[in-house]
């Protein structure tokens, strides 16, 4: 049962399976738990790749000898555990909401980590072993792997459009089993393959109830379904989330966030639309009679309609259609309704069209399926009113769960774009939840002040009005100062509905705290401070972060400040947990975990192995006598003759990358096929030390992911759609980096590895920084282009950068393979570990310094890598490159010098994207 030929198809399938599995896992845990905890769990699970590196290193010989069996077993185990891990994890009973109350929850979280790591460990073991078993075919294996990864990534997005996540997961698991079956398929010996195929078929045929997802009982959908006679009417799934439509005839929904206490009419019957089981919006029943919709005039968001006569309105985030009905009920002449999720529009217009009265096709309404910011930026039309709807749920806003999510809706630049699209005298209206102590509304106010100042308006206060009820606040922004008549209308609106003024030009401070009283008029005091010369002092002293978000730091929901954490935690037993903005601390905890678990799972076992096998990992390590003896034995066994001294007069080192020969060196211990290079004598300085290797591969692992994540963000604005942007940018990066890797094989073979890496690093640094600084300005005039043209342009921009980014890793690994082969798996694990850390680190860095800074750091890391190339001179990092270690003389020798096996074994990591859906980046 030994595979004679490399299993390209199996590798392709397994790679696709594992990548799609990770995307689906992220979706599933966002459904049954909450997004930020899902991110946390999967970041740790990914370290299973690192653990697989350790496993393969420690047991390389026995595993390679039984390649087909091990591959089939590992792929099969991946298939089975992929499903079992999810089913078991959701029965652990972890409750994220209780994590600070109940220490038992931490143990349960740990158990989930343990479960989820298993499938990744299995799949990575099979993939890594393939490269080890067929080192002569690495470029082709690599091509199969990277193409599989790209297919899996895009396939998962496709699957999510067609199937519910739990069903898609089964397909992903079955794919793993089929990969195992392919490896074992031999004429006359088909039993194992058929057994694996049968298991795959069984997975697909399992009754849906067996693999049904069990969401946390604290998610709103689960709670709603406990009410008598509630039922799910429809459920649709897409990469944007699972949308569940629910009716509750016995206890109607009556969703009217922030309805005035003075309202007398209740909302009409509604159907609730839950996204990922939480945070519902509603479809109102509309039968042509406007009286039933009159409650819409008692929301804070109704204010602009009392200042404008028959306006042309643009509703951003029209969702279930209530904002369309509000606009029409309150006199809008036309309504352009923009909604990102086509499935929501289908539910409203078709599935429940009779119930909803089809608001998107009412007279005067023009529907647009688009991302809100992109729609505004790419259209020239101006509107009397731009209404930004309340898009997120109160529960997530209140708990600070959006802290990590990038949003380009509420940045200074976004508000500037909206204002550019207003007619003279037009209004921008934005409604946010009232969070206490004041957060969202004050940050929005600060953002509007910054946007007005950016337009050169000297007195922003004259252009702003903000009112609040007990649950929502609405901001109005105008390019011209508000007129006295408009301000009178504001006052009349507030008084009639019992809303307070947060800010209104010329207001009496007594208006700030009359109807919805706080112990102090915190909102008014905040607004006046933000308009005063003391703004910076106020921002510094405020215990939540209110600094406006920008396109470079698009974290509107990031309110967390370290300075306040100690006080808030001290107040835990005193009801103070509600003050905690969860997103950021969870992110930092994720980073800390990735570092700790990464070190344990990858570095420690490998470090132990290196010590055990007599290869000290410290830089410039001295050889023990026994090693020198072993080295001499290895040299005797070498097939190649040493090269004469290189042109720079350095002492060339003898030897080669050794193949597995029984009884050779220390292989009798059954630890490794690959032994370290001898490094005694004057040539010792040319042998890369472990420290140098550590820096090089850590720098590359971090830098690749940082660049990739930063550019996904940059392209989201340009492509105006998160799914397009992530799919396209990832595929382009994968494809061209793969191409770059293939090109690098020639560089290495011709002894140009060090030089090639340095050139590539310079190209990357120059291109990345240039792009980071200029792309926003470059994109601005091109936003109106057709989507296909924008996509083509994006690929053209990414291609040279990704091509260069594909080179340093294989070149470095191949060079290391020549000089210290025993460090190759270690380098590979270090790189994979750094990629996982970088995926989290990118968000932390962007929150604090912005995505441009992330790119600049990545560029610096590439330059650092160039200076520590494991073939350069450690004592003269920027000195000339050393000559090639040896010159291959035969084609077989040249083949061996092609990029080392681990190119893509540990190269995946999670990337967080704004709409709460994670994809995998293949990195190097």
């Amino acid at each position, binding site marked *: 049962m030994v595979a004679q030929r490399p299993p390209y198809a199996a590798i392709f399938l397994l790679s696709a399976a594992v990548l799609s599995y990770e995307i689906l896992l992220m979706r599933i845990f966002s459904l049954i738990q909450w997004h930020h905890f899902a991110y946390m769990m999967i970041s740790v699970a990914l370290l299973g790749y690192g653990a697989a590196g350790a496993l393969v290193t420690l047991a390389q010989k026995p595993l390679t000898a039984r390649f087909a069996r091990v591959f089939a077993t590992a792929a099969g185990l991946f298939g089975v555990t992929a499903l079992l891990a999810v089913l078991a994890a959701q029965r652990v009973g972890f409750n994220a909401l209780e994590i600070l109350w109940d220490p038992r929850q931490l143990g349960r979280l740990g158990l989930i980590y343990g479960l989820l790591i298993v499938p990744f460990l299995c799949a990575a073991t099979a993939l890594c072993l393939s490269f080890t078993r067929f080192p002569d075919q690495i470029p082709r294996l690599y091509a199969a792997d990277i193409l599989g990864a790209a297919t899996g990534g895009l396939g998962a997005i496709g699957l999510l459009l067609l199937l519910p996540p739990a069903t898609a997961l089964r397909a992903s698991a079955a794919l793993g089993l089929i990969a195992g079956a392919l490896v074992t398929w031999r004429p006359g010996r088909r039993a194992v393959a058929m057994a694996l195929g049968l298991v795959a078929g069984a997975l697909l045929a399992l009754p849906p109830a067996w693999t049904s997802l069990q969401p946390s009982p604290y998610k709103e959908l689960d709670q709603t379904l406990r009410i008598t006679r509630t039922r799910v009417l429809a459920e649709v799934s897409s990469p944007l989330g699972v949308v569940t439509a629910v009716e509750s005839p016995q206890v109607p929904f009556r969703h009217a966030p922030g309805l005035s206490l003075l309202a007398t009419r209740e909302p009409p019957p509604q159907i609730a639309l839950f996204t990922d089981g939480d945070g519902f919006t509603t479809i109102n029943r509309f039968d042509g009679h406007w009286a039933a919709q009159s409650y819409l005039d008692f929301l804070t968001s109704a204010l602009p309609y009392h200042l404008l006569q028959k306006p042309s309105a643009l509703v951003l985030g029209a969702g279930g259609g209530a904002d369309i009905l509000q606009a029409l009920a309150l006199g809008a002449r036309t309504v352009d309704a923009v909604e990102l999720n086509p499935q929501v529009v289908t539910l409203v217009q078709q599935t429940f069209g009779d119930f909803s009265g089809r608001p998107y096709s009412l007279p005067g309404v023009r529907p647009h399926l688009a991302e809100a910011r992109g729609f505004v930026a790419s259209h020239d039309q101006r509107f009397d009113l731009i209404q930004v709807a309340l898009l997120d749920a109160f529960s997530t806003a209140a708990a600070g769960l959006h802290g990590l999510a990038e949003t380009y809706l509420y940045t200074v630049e976004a508000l500037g774009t909206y204002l550019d699209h207003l007619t003279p005298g037009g209004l921008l209206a934005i409604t946010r939840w009232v969070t206490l102590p004041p957060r969202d509304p004050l940050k929005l106010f600060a953002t509007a002040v910054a946007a007005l100042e950016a337009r050169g308006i000297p007195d922003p206060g004259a252009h702003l009005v903000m009112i609040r009820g007990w649950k929502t606040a609405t901001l109005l922004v105008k390019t011209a100062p508000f007129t006295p008549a408009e301000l009178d209308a504001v006052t009349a609106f507030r008084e009639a509905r019992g809303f307070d003024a947060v800010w209104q030009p010329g207001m009496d401070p007594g208006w700030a705290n009359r109807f919805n009283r706080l112990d102090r008029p915190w909102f008014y005091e905040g607004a006046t401070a933000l308009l005063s010369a003391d703004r910076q002092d106020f921002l510094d002293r405020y215990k939540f972060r209110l600094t406006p978000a920008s396109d470079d730091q698009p974290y509107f929901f990031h309110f967390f400040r370290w300075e306040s954490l100690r006080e808030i935690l001290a107040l835990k*037993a005193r009801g103070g947990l509600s003050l905690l903005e969860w997103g950021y601390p969870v992110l930092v905890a994720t980073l800390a975990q990735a570092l700790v678990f990464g070190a344990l799972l990858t570095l420690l076992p490998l470090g132990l192995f290196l010590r055990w096998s007599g290869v000290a990992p410290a830089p410039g390590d001295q050889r023990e006598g026994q090693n020198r003896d072993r080295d001499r034995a290895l040299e005797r066994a070498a097939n190649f003759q040493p090269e004469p001294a290189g042109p720079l007069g350095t002492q060339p080192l003898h030897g080669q990358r050794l193949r597995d020969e029984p009884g050779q060196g220390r292989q009798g211990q059954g630890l490794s096929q690959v032994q370290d290079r001898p490094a005694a004598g004057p040539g010792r300085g040319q042998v890369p030390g472990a420290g140098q290797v550590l820096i090089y591969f850590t720098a590359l692992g971090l830098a690749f992911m940082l660049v990739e994540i930063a550019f996904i963000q940059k392209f989201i604005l340009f492509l105006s759609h998160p799914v397009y942007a992530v799919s396209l940018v990832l595929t382009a990066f994968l494809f061209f980096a793969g191409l770059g890797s293939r090109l690098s094989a020639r560089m290495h073979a011709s002894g140009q590895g060090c030089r090639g890496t340095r050139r590539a690093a310079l190209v990357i640094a120059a291109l990345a920084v240039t792009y980071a600084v200029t792309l926003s300005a470059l994109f601005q005039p091109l936003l109106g282009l057709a989507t296909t043209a924008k996509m083509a342009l994006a690929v053209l921009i990414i291609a040279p950068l990704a091509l260069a980014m594909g080179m340093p890793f294989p070149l470095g690994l191949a060079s290391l393979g020549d000089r210290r082969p025993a460090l190759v798996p270690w380098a590979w694990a270090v790189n994979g570990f750094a990629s996982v850390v970088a995926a989290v680190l990118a968000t932390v860095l962007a929150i604090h310094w912005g995505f441009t800074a992330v790119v600049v750091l990545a560029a610096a890391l590439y330059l650092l890598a160039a200076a520590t190339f494991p073939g350069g001179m450690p004592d003269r990092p920027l000195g000339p490159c050393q000559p090639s270690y040896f010159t291959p003389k035969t084609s077989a020798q040249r083949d061996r010098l092609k990029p080392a096996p681990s190119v893509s074994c540990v190269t995946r990591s999670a990337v967080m994207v704004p709409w709460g859906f994670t994809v995998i980046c293949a990195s190097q």
Partner: protein
Amino acid sequence: MSRHFLLPALLCLVMAQSPFADEFSRQREQLMTAIADLATETAAETGRPAFSAAVMAALTQVPRHRFVPLDQVPYAYENRPLAIGHGQTISQPYIVALMTDLIDPRPDQTVLEIGTGSGYQAAVLAELVAQVYSIEIIAPLAEEAAARLKALGYPNLQTRVGDGYYGWEEAGPFDAILVTAAASHVPPPLIRQLKPGGRLVIPVGTHFMAQYLLLVEKTADGQVSSRQILPVSFVPLTGGGKD
């Protein structure tokens, strides 16, 4: 002589009847001390220097461990919310005390509760006012709570399963209404069922953390206003203490 015998005997009798006789008496005392301390700390936010003696006595009387599932009993007297099944929680005792105190309960009052849950808040109210009506939306939870409250013996407490949005029309108007269920808005029918001078309290936030309490007040002439009360001593500005 007989007097010396009588006093310990009387004390034994009182202790046997009191909830302090159970194994949780020490924990309960500590909890009550913690609640009293928190009330003092948050005086500026709540406008109440201390919770009324009657409210504190009611919390002492009601055995919280009888209102939580068995696996949560060891934590019953910790000042934290606890899961009670059906995706519901029993509120942090301090929040229960604060909400109860905010409605200024008096022995002659009629109070409506929306969201019976385990029945703990209803039991606390029943210790304080003449009549309590409580509505629960989740049927199994309502049935469990009704059985529990019946076993504990609260003749002045009525429960039912149903929609709390329209209140309990035939029993209203109410002196106070407590809404412990999530609400996107204050239901207009509930405001209508509030007597002039009445108070309505809603905790706003998620299950395991109340972000703030909304206190709706109806004046004698029918005017309605609200107060948002942070249940924690926290000033959003450093160096910006209360004047």
